[in-house]
């Protein structure tokens, strides 16, 4: 599974993109976040306040219940501020 971080989530994790092999039983974005939080203090900090974190699975917006599976591209970022 490819996991991407943007904006201050990238700054906090210190990572723009990483390959993650989540343990068995992880089937949703919410479960994936629980796993990612354990990877480093930076990851824990990035996911401290989920209300300001948005997620996209395979480049479409999702939520905590969105299914994830091996091979997916999962991106985490703050609310967007373009335009």
């Amino acid at each position: 599974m490819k996991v991407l971080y943007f904006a201050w989530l990238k700054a906090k994790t210190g990572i723009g993109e990483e390959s993650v092999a989540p343990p068995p039983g992880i089937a949703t974005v919410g479960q994936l976040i629980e796993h990612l939080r354990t990877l480093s203090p930076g990851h824990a900090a990035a996911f401290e306040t989920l209300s300001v974190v948005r997620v996209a699975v395979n480049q479409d917006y999702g939520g905590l219940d969105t299914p994830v599976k091996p091979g997916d591209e999962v991106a985490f970022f703050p609310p967007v501020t373009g335009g």
Partner: protein
Amino acid sequence: MIRVQREDFDPGAELAGFSAGKTSVGGICLFIGLVRDYLGHSPASGSGPAAGAEVRAMTLEHYPGMTERQLEAIEAEAHKRWPLEDTLVIHRYGRLEPGERIVLVAASSAHRDAAFEACRFLIDWLKTKAPFWKVEHTRDGDSWVDAKESDDAAAARWEK
């Protein structure tokens, strides 16, 4: 058409190509967003530069691939809602100085109502759906721009 690019664009050339040879277009509405020289947001509580601090530049980060996908979806939605001849969305990324162009959206139609509404829709939806993030570089340091509630409200007007 949508374009995501680092380099600047020429609004006149874009406009010229947009309506060239069309005699069924009654109106074109175009919006250009520019970098302002002051902070347009409330900094995160207790940290970052004060509101009103001079913005020396900003950097626009984006999510390549998803950006194009979302802009195409926004453009397709506009064509579903209004009888449009054509639409154009250009969004830049990378470092931008005050006064520089960030974004251009345009819509043409037989009637001005549709052109205006679609143009407004394009920028409102883009601002809440296209994966871009601004970090402002000020004398007091860098700060990620917070999403604006007013942008959410503007986009919500178009929900149905």
